């Protein structure tokens, strides 16, 4: 029962946070800020939703289920590893090309014709 309530609470939190992230992505003025909002969904919302799933999985405590929980936490770990990295990569790309000369002077389509 407690598990259910905790699960429910986490689900609600997750959805609400995701809602906030979506609103942010829609409302913020430029893509840098939107990326911050996208970061929310990458971290908190995913973590709380996945934790809720993991808790639900713990309803019947058995060895395979524990491993599933382990895998879910692997997913959390990976998302919190890949999320920032891709955010950074995108930001970097956007920033790099705006403020400094592009790395390749030529457009790739010009050289072969």
């Amino acid at each position, binding site marked *: 029962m407690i598990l259910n309530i905790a699960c429910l609470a986490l*689900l609600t939190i997750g959805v609400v946070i995701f809602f906030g992230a979506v609103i942010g992505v829609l409302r913020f003025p430029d893509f840098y800020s939107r990326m911050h909002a996208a970061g929310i969904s990458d971290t908190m919302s995913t973590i709380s939703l996945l934790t809720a799933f993991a808790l639900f999985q713990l309803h019947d405590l058995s060895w395979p289920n524990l*491993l599933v929980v382990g895998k*879910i936490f692997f997913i959390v770990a990976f998302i919190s590893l890949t999320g920032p*990295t891709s955010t950074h990569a995108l930001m970097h790309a956007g920033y790099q090309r705006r403020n400094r000369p592009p*790395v390749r002077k030529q457009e790739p389509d010009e050289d072969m014709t």
Partner: protein
Amino acid sequence: MEDVFLTTGILLFILAGLVLLRVVIGPTAIDRIVAVNMLGTQTTVLLILIGILFHRVDMFVDFALTYALLNFVGSLAAARYLLRTKPLKDTKIIVTEVDRA
């Protein structure tokens, strides 16, 4: 409890639809990539949710994990592309720089 998950799933889908809206309007490619990346993360969550609805989470975790890992490759490739090429058209972004030691 199942209904709760179902509702959560539907809510997430509707919200994902809003993200899709950003993909539609997003003026630059980066906006779209950001939104797509976000949808990718959400797909991972939804996959596990579907697994719960099927009562077979152990089967669905695997490719949720795959999705989490490989979605990264796609957005990285896009970022790399943007890094390597001239932009299609420059967007105006107001940024103030502050120095801080």
